[in-house]
């Protein structure tokens, strides 16, 4: 059974590597989240920067 698990994990990893190597669209798709995460992060930072000196945009316990 353990041999099966080892083979299974290895096969899944190998398949992923092959897809990544052979399929540029997959590479773009799989790497996209790391950029969109930063984009969202910047939007939040921008909003915080814009409101940091005042409290009018923050309501009790939440963000307006």
């Amino acid at each position, binding site marked *: 059974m353990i041999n099966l*698990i080892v083979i299974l994990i290895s096969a899944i990893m190998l398949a992923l590597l092959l897809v990544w190597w052979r399929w540029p669209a997959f590479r773009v798709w799989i790497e996209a989240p790391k*950029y969109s995460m*930063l*984009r969202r992060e910047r*939007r939040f930072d921008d909003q*915080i*920067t814009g409101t940091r000196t005042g409290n009018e945009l923050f309501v009790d316990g939440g963000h307006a």
Partner: protein
Amino acid sequence: MTTSAQNLTSRNERVINTQTLGALPSIEYGLIRAHVFASLVTLVISVLFGILVATKFTFPEFLGGHGWLTWGRLRYNHTQGIFFGWLGNAFLAFFYYVVPRLANRPVLSRRIGWFLFWIWNFAVVLPGWVLVAAGFSQPLEWAEFPLVVDAFVVLAFILMVFEFVLPFLRARLSDLYVSAWYIIGGIIFTMLAYPVGNLVPELVPGARGAAFSGLWIHDAVGLFVTPFAAAIAYYLIPATTRRAIFSHFLSLVGFWLLFFTYPLNGTHHYVYSAIPMAAQKGAIVASVYLGIAVILVVTNWLLSLRGSSGTVSKDVPLRFVWFGVVAYLVVSLQGSVQALMPVNRFIHFTDWVIGHSHLAMIGFASFIALGGIAHLWQRIPGTRYNERMMNWSFWLLAIGLTLMVADLTIAGLVEAQVWQSSAPWIDSVRAVGSYWLVRTLSGLPILAGFVLFWISLVTGPKLSEATKSETSSEASESVVAFENASPVSDKLSSTGWLSYAYVVAFGAGVGFFALSFLVLAILPGKELEDEIKRVAPVTMPMLTASEQRGRVVYGREGCAYCHTQQVRSLAADVRRFGAPTEPWETKYDYPQLWGTRRIGPDLSREFNLHPRDWQLAHLYNPRLVVGDSVMPSYPWLFSGSPNQPTQEGLDVLAYIQSLGRARQLSGFDRQTLASSVQFETADMVMASEPSARATPPVVPIAMVGGYSLSAPVLHPASDPDDLQEEVSRGRTLFAVNCASCHGSTGRGDGKASASLLPKPANITAARFSDERLSSVLWNGVAGSAMPPWRQMPTEDLRALVAYIHSLHVPGAAPSTQDVKTLHEGKSLFGANCASCHGDTGAGDGPAAGALAPSPTNFHLKKPTEERAWDVLENGVPGTAMPPWRSQLNADERRALVEFVRSLYGPPQENSTQ
């Protein structure tokens, strides 16, 4: 006027700006603050528990008078407090901060959030602590809170699914960031694993239950702690450096490898145990795989930080995370190596593993959680940290942890070395005493670091201009590059199947999670069940009601956290404790109490090992009978003295004395011995060959099941100088090992003597032959509290013999040796004493075989006149020797005294004890 106009303009700009950004989700800052506060309160309390636990290794009586503060219960509350109180709250605080950012949607409900907060802290952590302290607990590692609390934990995880997972599902993002993967995976898989790990071992006994427990021990770290800490690291590194991580592909490969392999690791806590070897090997292979996965993950993190060393050194939260990343690499590779059989056989059960777990929980998880809290604290309205304090906190924690881990690692190696030798168990306790003190001291900078961290959060400036400028001015090159590129959706127009990849991957994850239970718990459990049915003796006795109650007390006081109940299939274990534990021996153990740590010896062969009064004295105050013991006292199981146990005390005694009974009474070893070949210390063969596990030991060190004919006769040195040296060494050994019972002068008046029956021998009141002393030291004295000391080096035993000889003071008045008196004494002896002591006084009368302690062999022991007279007058309480005052007059008793003292020396006929 001008100022007012400017303010108005500025305000309008901000409002317009907000309206433009518009869709940004709200963040529950109140809940973040509440969970941060709760995390730090519970952290400090949990660390205080830990420092108390550590202090008790050096000062066992420290705060030891009451059950609420005993070592076992504090230890339970220390680990559960760190797990639920500190890390649980810290992770929840981070979820409220990061989930809206990653999902682009708010968490489900503020009301659910507060409900979750109250459940987590006031239905799980607080009642859990109180219940454990009051004695209501579950003796399973990382599952110590009682089942009633577990129900609220599961409810909390269900709420977490709604609060944090649902926003991601609703968002239908095609670009789910890896931190979100870790948060979703951690919540769902912990929700599934928690009830299995906490409930199933209560329903499945012994070795089968241990297979499930092993899974949860590792799932607690692998499915709860690690994913959430990884989520923080994956978020915080790009958020601080403002550069995308090195590879999102590698991050997802690492994610799935972690979730594939972590659940498979659990059984590596039970290598060389009775769990089927296939499951053990599976766990070892998975542990190696996990090491590979961690190298992948850490490489990705470190590559993401390349070129950011300046930021790491300046930004304290990022530095916390960087430290955590390095600790993660070290602790994971250490874990992989520990699982390997050649290493595991030595270091398992030692303090090495405790160092490993502290490196994982503080070095990895806590450092990253602290980094996460500090990061968000700097970015939520109205809160900033005090950078100077935060910096001090980092260095105190780093120094304290490094010292602690190094100290415990070395202590573990020292323990392992002593355990491999034939030295008495207590020598391993003595050997690491100084290391335990250092460990306690290393906890102080750690506590100070955590307190300073807390102070830094509440003493920071209300506004940090530096952070403001950083976040507003720095543009991310990688984001710009990405935004200039064509949208991802365009490129995926011909590969729409990729949008289903998450579903497929998630299904695979759940499937593999289920597979881990099948492979490492259900299948081995079935195999064990079959073996138990096939092998278990039909006459195997169940525990009595008293023993069952005692088992509950044993579990509640945390005894299994210092005393294992599993003799592993290793020569060192077998030599010391006896035959390896068989699965059938654990048939009635609900839940299993195998343990994963040895501070005291294994107890699975305790049946017949120590007499009742020794056990009671040991429970009342271990130092009464084992001078250097660090075991806690349990005075609340007694009514003021060791001779007055409460019902609970009697129940624990009954349970301890039942351990190994089934094995001894069943004849299992004799049966197996007849059908198997005797092994010779081939550990690997024993581990891999189930038949070898059943082979009993030749001479287990700690077993006193029978008299050993192989006892060597230890003659002290004949050279006066050598003898003097032996006596001197024997004096030291006696003071350390024997004085607690026999007294510092050997008069049988040690601290434990009041609790023991028969009383410890007054060894100044008799002259002993070398044979008698050797036999007693080698085998102990059955029916008394005198244990065997054969595990001591022969030179030490010889030194003890020499010292005991030196204690004997010959009587002032020599024996009369009057022939008439001796003749009368012989006649009286034959009529009254020979049935026990034998015709020749060799202690081999017809009744001797049924008596414990055995009747005295007067050829090997010559009592002083006073002692012999006293025995005839008063008998020997606790033995079969009655007083003869009323049966024999003074002259007759005097004649008997003369006669028995004349017997010393080689008998006329051969006799054995």
